[in-house]
């Protein structure tokens, strides 16, 4: 169908965790046809669990103890934004803060922070440093860098990081970088051999 689909196939057969997590998320949010959801385990499986049935809710609650909540919100629909929209059975902490006006204000400020929860990814400045920045500072981050073990991407000059859902926007695979689901890949090594 498109190159993005091709990419999704790669990590599923080779067992890359990060790829699977995003793969599940992409399939969920964009409705990519033909995504083989049953082949993904781990995080992918988590994303594909609808939190509607009792059995699944139980599963999710169990996993929440391990997964510290963030993934659960993602599983409920949409990465990042789901954190504040989806207050399913597992969202005890968030739903209690949702009714409190002062906590709500804090929530809005937090929403301006770039989201990056996927394992294996780091940024420069680090997420911890970004978390301390004002909105004005977040709007003008010099030479923002995001990387994992496969590649790093350095954005030149000032980057507006406000409210960017990096989990959803950036996908770095071996010899492939995807931003906004655009596929930049290289099969040259295979062709040359």
């Amino acid at each position, binding site marked *: 169908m498109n*190159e*993005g689909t091709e990419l999704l196939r790669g990590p599923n057969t080779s067992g890359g965790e990060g790829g699977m997590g995003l793969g599940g998320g992409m399939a969920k949010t964009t409705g990519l046809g033909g995504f083989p959801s049953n082949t993904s385990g781990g995080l992918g499986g988590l994303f594909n669990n609808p939190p509607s049935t009792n059995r699944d809710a139980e599963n999710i609650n169990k996993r929440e103890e391990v997964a510290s909540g963030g993934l659960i919100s993602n599983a409920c629909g949409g990465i990042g934004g789901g954190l504040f929209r989806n207050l399913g059975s597992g969202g005890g902490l968030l739903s209690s803060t949702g009714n409190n006006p002062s906590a709500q204000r804090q929530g809005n400020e937090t929403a301006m922070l770039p989201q990056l929860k996927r394992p294996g990814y780091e940024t420069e400045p680090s997420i911890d440093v970004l978390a301390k920045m004002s909105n004005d500072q977040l709007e003008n981050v010099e030479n923002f860098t995001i990387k994992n073990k*496969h*590649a790093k991407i350095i*954005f030149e000059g000032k980057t507006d990081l406000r409210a960017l859902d990096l989990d959803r926007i950036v996908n770095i695979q071996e010899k492939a970088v995807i931003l*906004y689901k*655009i596929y930049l890949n290289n099969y*040259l090594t295979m062709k*040359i051999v």
Partner: protein
Amino acid sequence: MYPDRTAVPPLGKGLNKPATIVFLNWTLPTRYNRPLQEYKDKLKGWTESKKAAFNYYDQEKAEFSIKVQHF
């Protein structure tokens, strides 16, 4: 090429802006025995076919770097 075009912000917005990409652990293909320059030329050709600019390929660091104007 653009499966979900609506999700891409306009040029210069968000992360759709000039960036340098450094691929790490980019080793030569196994059993590659042709001149290194030939491999670099291949990488360069691929890079330019993607409308990006070839920065360098460093065999010792196993790094391959390109520059894109946007995504």
